Structures are given as C-alpha cells and as structure tokens.
C-alpha cells in the first residue's frame, strides 16, 4: 500500500499542472458550468487544446487515438483540472460514454469513422436513453426502430439529453422488435443529429437554464451501418455505456466536491461560522476525504482487474448527497443573501445556482433509490425487490 504517486504519475501530474497554469484562458477559470458551457466557442476551443496536448482519451488504446495510459492518469487529470477550476471537455458524453461503447462493440469502420473526431471535440455526442415513461426503468423504452430494406426508421421521444442541441451524433436505445418487452428486442443506433425528422427542444430546469433537452424522432432514417453491436442486442451495449459512465465518474465528482469544500471553507472565513456550522464544515471535510480515498481504493482494483471495485458503486451515491449538504451549508453561511440571484447575489449567485442544481444530482445518472437497490442486490446479495 502506497498512497503517493509513482515517479511516472508524479511527473505527469507536474507537467499537467504546469500546462494548465500556462494554457487555461483566464475567462474559463472557475467556469460556471451548467448551460454556460454552451455559450460561444470558448469551451469547444479549450476541448481542442486538451486534445492537441494529448489530454483527451488518456486511457483509450493508442490505436484509437488515445494515450494508452493506466486509469490513474485519468484520475490525476480530473483532479488537476478540477483544482485549476478548468471546464470539462465539451465532449464528455463522447469521451465517457459513446467512445468506450464504440471501442467495445463497434466495427473497425465505425471506430475509424467516429473516434478521432470525438476526441478532438470536432464532433459532439449526446445520449438518447431516458424517455418520459422510461427513466429508472430503461427497459421500458418505446422509441421504435423499424427495419425497411437498408435502413431503420426511428420514431419516438427521448428526454434529459444534455448537449443534444449542439450534438452531431446521438447514441440511441430503440426497440427494434415490435412485439418485444423489457430487455429483449432492443437495438443501439448511432443517429446523425442533422437527419431530417430530428427535433431538439430545450428542457428548462429549476435553476432557470436549460442544460438538457427533449429529442423528437419522426420517421428518421438511419443506415443499417449505424447499428452498434447486434440488432436485438441493444441492452448489452447500453449496459456497457452505463458501466463506463460509472467507471471514472467517481473521480470527476470527487474532484469537483473537493473544490466545493475548499470554497465552503473560504466562505466560512469570509462570512464567519457558528460552532454548529464549524462542526458541519468539519464533517463535510471528513466525508470528502473518505470519498476521495474510496475513489482511490476503487481505482486500485480497476488498475489490477480492469473493472471498478464494488466500493466504486457508492461513489456517485455518496457524492450526490454530500454535494447537496455542502451547497445547503453554504447558503446557511450566506444568511438572507442566500435568496438573492445572479448579479445581485454574493459571488455572482454561485452558491444559489450550485445548491438548486444539486437537487438533480440524486436523480441523474442513477437515482439514489436505484443505486441503493443495486448495492443491496449486487453487492450485498439480497433478493431482488422487483
């Protein structure tokens, strides 16, 4: 057991830190995130810079344009980016979900066609999984894909798709066998978002902005070459996507929580904190360290076995609840100012925005209820409740 970086990791970290210091544009530092990611080209340009410096797809195989590095490098990248308060790569869906799914299930043509442009943020990806009637129960999807000679015709609706309004491609879970129910008869398609019949509508959320979208598909023609995996085998492919979403997500989340707790401590210094609030701040710092080292434990297992350890299943669950507590505590420190917005508010409304946004954290990427059920069934081995 050694909790220090290896020599190579230390060198990578130092080099990255220097590069971020020298290259992160000032206007992007402490970027608000959320819908502001889509304002102008600044974040896309930043994403291209990351690609050109070799920081996109660090763990991807070299043959697909990646760095071929161990997972610890991705963890270091996420930590240092968060510390520098740099915005995420605009292509996070591509990097974290579509790309790894294409690497696992794609044909050589598909890999050649999609992967490089994904890494450079030349092409942006969105995800078409959830529907109004298929959220936690993804197998209830009804968006249909009807095979007609050389193409599928897609009809249906997806919801909660971030980046859909700027995306070039969509990874779409459809029901291709009309008589099928639940996990059977699904097909995973790659959709050209510029196709006729694709309509994107923004979904306004409680923070006032629209990070997510609805996507409507009306008679959208999709060439059969755009099937990923087997026709009818879409569930397995979707599970690959979700597994990867959960893989390195832990580090990304932990890093952003570390920044939030640091800011909370600064806030307490500026605004003052009562003994009860000091106790709460200390508790959040302690819980943050526990989360950090749990992410490292899961990483250690992943580096040895290629699969995240079972302790990784709790990272998102814990992070989401911790983020809600931390942002709420910040509002408490702000007192009456907590109810002001944007430019009238202290720190430009940062905490108000973060706190409202945090209510979505326990819902997106697996609700807390579903995650607890997964832990109970798959980790503790308890009988299935559904």
């Amino acid at each position, binding site marked *: *057991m*050694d*909790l*220090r*970086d290896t020599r190579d*990791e230390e060198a990578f970290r130092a080099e990255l830190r220097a590069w971020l210091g020298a290259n992160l544009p000032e206007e992007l530092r402490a970027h608000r995130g959320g819908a502001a990611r889509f304002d102008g080209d600044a974040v896309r340009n930043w994403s291209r810079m990351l690609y050109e410096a070799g920081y996109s797809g660090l763990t991807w195989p070299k043959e697909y344009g990646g760095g071929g590095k161990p997972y*610890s490098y991705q963890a270091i990248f996420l930590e240092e980016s968060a510390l520098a308060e740099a915005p995420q790569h605009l292509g996070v869906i591509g990097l974290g979900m579509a790309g790894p799914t294409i690497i696992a299930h794609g044909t050589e043509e598909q890999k050649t066609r999609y992967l490089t442009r994904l890494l450079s943020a030349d092409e942006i990806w969105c995800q078409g999984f959830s529907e109004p009637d298929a959220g936690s129960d993804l197998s209830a999807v009804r968006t249909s894909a009807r095979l007609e000679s050389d193409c599928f015709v897609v009809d249906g609706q997806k919801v909660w798709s971030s980046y859909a309004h700027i995306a070039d491609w969509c990874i779409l879970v459809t029901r291709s066998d009309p008589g099928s129910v639940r996990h059977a008869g699904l097909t995973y398609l790659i959709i050209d978002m510029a196709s006729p019949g694709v309509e994107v509508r923004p979904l306004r959320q409680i923070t006032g902005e629209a990070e997510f979208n609805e996507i409507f598909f009306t008679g959208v023609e999709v060439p059969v070459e755009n099937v990923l995996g087997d026709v009818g085998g879409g569930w397995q492919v979707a599970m690959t996507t979700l597994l990867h979403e959960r893989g390195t997500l832990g580090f990304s989340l932990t890093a952003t929580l570390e920044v939030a707790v640091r800011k909370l*401590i600064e806030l*307490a*210094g500026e605004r003052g*904190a009562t*003994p009860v609030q*000091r*106790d709460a*701040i*200390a*508790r959040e*710092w*302690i*819980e943050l*360290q*526990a*989360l*950090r*080292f*749990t992410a*490292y*434990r899961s*990483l*250690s*297992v992943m*580096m*040895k076995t290629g699969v995240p350890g079972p*302790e990784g299943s*709790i990272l998102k*669950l*814990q992070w989401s609840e911790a983020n809600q507590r931390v942002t709420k505590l910040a509002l408490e420190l702000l007192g009456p100012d907590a109810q002001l917005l944007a430019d009238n508010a202290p720190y430009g409304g940062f905490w108000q925005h973060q706190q409202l946004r945090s209510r979505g954290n326990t819902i997106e990427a697996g609700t807390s*209820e579903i995650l*607890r*059920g997964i*832990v*109970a*069934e798959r*980790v*503790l*081995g*308890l*009988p*299935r*409740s559904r």
Partner: protein
Amino acid sequence: MDFSFTPEQDELRTQARAFLSTHREPSWAALAELGWTGVSVSEQAGGAGLGFLEEAILFEEMGRALTHAPYWSTVGVLLPALPPELQAEVASGEASWTLALGPLVSDLDTATRVAIVGGDSIRELDGFEREVLSTNDETRPLGVVVGGEAGRLLASSDVLPRLRARSFTALALEACGVGARALELAIEYVKEREQFGKPIGIYQAVSHPLATTYMELELARSLALWAAWCIAEDDPQARIAAAAAKALCAEAAVAACERSIQVHGGVGFTWEHILHRLYKRALWIQSWEASGAQLRSEVATHLLDTEGA
C-alpha cells in the same frame, strides 16, 4: 497510488481471522507466539521488524472478533513509547501494558504493567492497586489504579500526540471490523428470515438501510486505511487523519450495529445474540478519550483557523 495489500499481509489477515474466531480470550503468550505482539518491534529486539500496516490488519480483525486481550492497550497505544528492552518484553510475551492517561484505564483486567503521564514524562507505575469496574463492553473493561508511585522513565511526554494519533487510528480500524461483522450478520439474517411469505431482505425498507450501512462502512474504512498509512509513514497529516478516522469510523460502527439490531427484530434485542456485544464495543470506541464533536472541533480549527489551511 496503490491501496492494495501484499500477499503476505493478506495471509496475515486470513490467519488472524481464523485464529481469533476460535480464541475469544487469547493469552498474551499465545499472541506473542503468533508474532503479533512484536509485529513492529525491531528484529534485534525480537520482533518481526514490520510496521503499522500489519498491526492495522490485526486491529481490524480483533475488532471483528471482539478479542478480549490488552492488544490495543499495548500495541495500539503505548508501544512506540517503550524503550527497546521493554519492547523486547512485549515481543516475547513477558509483558503487556496499558496507559493511565485519564481517570479510567482500559484493559486493567489483563494488562500486566501500567504507565502514567506526569509532568514532562511517561513513566511506569510501581506498587499500585488496580480495581476493575463493571463495564458495558465486557471485552474491554475499564478500571482505576490506586496508589503507586512513578518509576522507570519510558519516554518524554512529547510523544503523546503521536501516541494519540496511533491509538485513535487503531480504534478506527477496530471499529471497521466491528461494523463489518454487524453488517454481515444482518445480511445473513435478512436472507434467511421469512415473513409474509418472503425473505425480509426483499423489502426495501430493510435492504436500503443496509445498503446505506455498507456505504458508510466503506467510506469509513477508506479513512481508516489512509490514517493507517499516515501512521506507518509518519506523514504530517497523521494527526488530522487519525482524528477524522476515529470520529467517522466510530459513528459508522455504532450505526451499523444499530441497523443490524433493528433488522434482526426481536432476536437482535436478546442478550444471547452477539449483536449487543459488537454494539457495546462500538460505543466504547466512540466514547474513548475524545467524542466525535471534539474531534470535529479539532478538524475545524485545522481547516479554518490555521495559517495556510
């Protein structure tokens, strides 16, 4: 960063679990023969010359097994403060120790020697009387020492902060073992016990709190392992890591025991079931020396009041 244990360390854990499950009150001589008392004592002094990571494994396993022996009192609290010749006696099994830091002293029923703090030094106490008190946790009774006088010098009291960090980390690791066992018993029970025609583990009101317990224990264990590494490496963060670990791990263990008692229903409330003993060890750990609130206050001072925090 690598969190894994070596094959030798894993083997130690396997052996420890097997031995401790069948030896609830091992003699000090038996523990010495296994090489456990002298794990971190130097080879010249008759020890194994290993370190705190090996001891960490033993603390965790002894928590799980509710071992009734002065291992924590000797090895977890005082060992680094003993001069080499006294460490050799610990390694050989001739002596076990406890430190009388406050009015209540742990393991007075089994520890052979007592140390006290006076002025600027830690010394052995000679010629005292001991009285063991009725204690909730029968596996780690508290007692008082009466009379006696300060004898041989052991160390300067400068080492006390280090001993505190070490002893807190050891308790945190024990708490992880206690909590893990309580959870395992709960899982086993809710898979077997049927009501309304189904194993009760199928009901989310039962399974989800256990999932939360799993999460809390894993988070706590990560902290305990971090603290253990800091102690082993004498890292500058050792004190804050130990405080954080003791606070969180004790709380997680208490909660794990309470949830386990709850899902066991009436049976979990009986004297015959082991759960109340695990629970009492968790409560003992939580109340030893510094409460969670006190420890968090120390962490808050470190975060909010110190320069460059």
